[in-house]
C-alpha cells in the first residue's frame, strides 16, 4: 500500500506532460556589434550551444548570410532553426514564411546555417534556434 500511493502520484505528474519549452537562443541584426546581437532566452540551451559567428555578403543582389552554430555539449542535440527577414526600415518582409527547419548537431560539432534573403528589399535578419520541444514533435506509436 505504501508504495502504491507515491506511484500514483508519480504517474499523475508524469503522464500529464507540461507545455513544451519553445524558447532558445537567437541572433538579431539590430546593431552592428556582434555581442549585442546575441540573445539567450533559454539558459539551459545557452550552456550547450553558442552562436559563434555571423558572416554576410551580397550574392546576385541578395543578402546572403551564414551563422556558425557550435555545440558545447558531448551528446547530439536535436534542434530547429528559423530565419526571419526585415527591410531597411525594420519591417518584416510580408508574405515570406520561413519554415522552422530541423537540425541534428553532433557532440561538440560546428555547423553553418545558410540563409538567403527572399528579395533585394530584405537587408537584415534574425535567426532563432530552439530545441525540439517534447510535445507533439515526437513519434507516438
Amino acid at each position, binding site marked *: 500500500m505504501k508504495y502504491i500511493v507515491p506511484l500514483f502520484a508519480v504517474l*499523475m505528474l508524469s503522464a500529464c506532460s507540461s507545455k513544451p519549452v519553445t524558447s532558445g537562443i537567437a541572433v538579431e541584426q539590430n546593431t552592428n556589434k556582434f555581442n549585442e546581437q546575441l540573445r539567450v532566452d533559454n539558459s539551459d540551451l545557452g550552456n550547450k550551444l553558442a552562436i559563434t559567428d555571423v558572416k554576410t555578403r551580397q550574392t546576385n543582389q541578395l543578402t546572403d548570410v551564414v551563422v556558425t552554430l557550435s555545440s558545447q555539449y558531448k551528446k547530439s542535440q536535436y534542434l530547429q532553426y528559423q530565419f526571419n527577414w526585415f527591410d531597411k526600415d525594420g519591417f518584416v518582409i510580408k508574405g515570406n514564411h520561413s519554415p522552422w527547419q530541423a537540425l541534428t548537431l553532433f557532440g561538440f560539432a560546428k555547423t553553418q546555417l545558410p540563409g*538567403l534573403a527572399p*528579395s533585394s528589399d530584405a537587408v537584415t535578419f534574425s535567426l532563432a534556434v530552439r530545441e525540439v520541444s517534447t510535445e507533439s514533435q515526437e513519434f507516438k506509436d
Partner: protein
Amino acid sequence: MIISKKFKTASTYALVGLSALVLSGCANKAVVSYGDAQAVETTDINFGSTDLQKVASQMTDSLLSSPVVGTMTANKRPIVFVERIKNKTSEHIDTESITDSISTQMLRSGKFRFVDMTRVESVREQLTFQNEDALINPATAVAFGKQIGAQYMLYGNLSSIVKSNADKSDVYYKFTMRLMDMESGLVEWADETEIRKTKEKSTFGW
C-alpha cells in the same frame, strides 16, 4: 484494531481520489486549436508540410544564389514555365504544391517571370469569347498572338528509398530540380536536396 481499520479506509479513499485525479487530469478531450503553419511537423514518417517547405526554400535559395542565374538575371527577368515534378515515390504527393511554392518564392524575389501552363485552356476560352462574341467591344478585346513565350523550363524528380524492420522505419527522399534553356536545350542550373526521416519504437512512453 479500530485505528488500523480507520487508517485502511482513509488510504483507500486517498487511493480512489488519486486514481480519479490521474484519470480526469489526462482525459482525452477533443480540443481545437490553431498551430504554427511553419512548425516542424512529425506526425508520421510520410512526406509532410515540413519536407515541402524545406525542399521549396532550399531549391529557391540555391537557384537564386547560383552564379549562372546571377548572369541570367543581371539585366532582365527571364520567363520561366514550370513543367512538373515527377513523383517517383511510393506515396501520393501533390508535387504541384511544391512547384507552386517554388515559383511563388522565385516570383517574389523579383528576378523571374512565369507563364502558367495550367491555365492555358481558360485563357484561350476567354480570348475566344472576347474576340468572337458580339457582346464585347472589339476595341477592348485582348488580341491573340501577343503572349510572350517562355525561355526556360523548370522541372524535376522526387524519389524515395524506404526501408523498415520490426523496430525501425527509415525513409530517404531525394528531390532534384533543373532549369533548361529551351532554345539551346542546355541545363543551366541543377541542384538536389535530401531528407532522411527515421521512426523508432520508443521503449518508454505513453
